[in-house]
């Protein structure tokens, strides 16, 4: 019951962010499906977002200055928007790849290897 009674701080959020980040990395590193890799990327971005939002929040830090203020949330917004853009393009690329190679296995996309 300790966690329940003690008030939540930035660090807890950061732990969540870290876990999401790392699982995203693992996802990127292990999935052979291009869309899986894409999901990994989303996860990573969200891990980062969690940290930003947490740092910009007034409730999570003792100093009432509210951490980095609104910057965190603004940056989080930008990250979200850009993630959307990135997803759109990535998806388009994947579909193209699928059209041309009849597969979405990233290990097969090595025509340009040295």
């Amino acid at each position, binding site marked *: 019951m300790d966690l329940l009674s003690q008030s939540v701080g930035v660090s807890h959020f950061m732990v969540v962010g870290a876990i999401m980040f790392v699982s995203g990395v693992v996802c990127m590193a292990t999935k052979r499906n291009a869309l899986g890799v894409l999901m990994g990327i989303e996860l990573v971005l969200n891990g980062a977002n969690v940290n930003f*939002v947490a740092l910009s929040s007034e409730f999570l830090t003792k100093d009432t200055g509210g951490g980095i203020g609104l910057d965190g949330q603004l940056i989080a917004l930008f990250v979200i928007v850009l993630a959307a853009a990135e997803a759109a393009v990535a998806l388009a690329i994947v579909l193209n790849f699928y059209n041309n190679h009849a597969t979405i296995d990233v290990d097969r996309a090595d025509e340009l290897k040295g």
Partner: protein
Amino acid sequence: MNWHSFFFLLFAAISCGFAVMVVLSSNIVRMAFYLIVSLGATAGLFFLAGADFVAAMQLMIYVGGTLVLLVFGVMLTAQSPFVSMKTSGGDWILAFLLSGSLLAFLIPAAFSVSDWREGATPAVGSVDAPPPRNTADRLGLGLLGVRVDKLEDRPAMLRAGMAGYLLPFEIVSVHLLVVLVGAAYLARTKRRAG
């Protein structure tokens, strides 16, 4: 007992758990579903952190837009060979080693700052909710270059030319447009003659 912490734990558990499940599951469709849940829970975390506009955005753009796109893509390519693609065990082990070490660095780093350990919300048994903040307006002003949370930070002289996030905002919007056009171009159906 503190609802704030309780909901935090709830959402944190959901998001982290499902993130891990995304990694562990090998069925691409399930992965997509888990991802959705995980991101939704993240939105909940944002609500808790008082950034409800960002949360709404997360729900709307990310979960409602990006992930729908993703699922869309999944379905377009969801054929039996691709639904579940196994990865060699060596990769798994290597990945887990590396990510474990990364985690081992990140978690202590998270707790390294003493200010961050304790939240501002009064501990046990408080009924008064945190003061309602209108983040939407503040964000809007911030995008227009007025930082209501850092009014006095800058000298008045600098405040005059302060454009805040207006320029990045515009750039991002243009970038979005370009991305949409480019995506439409990439994904267009190739009409082959005959």
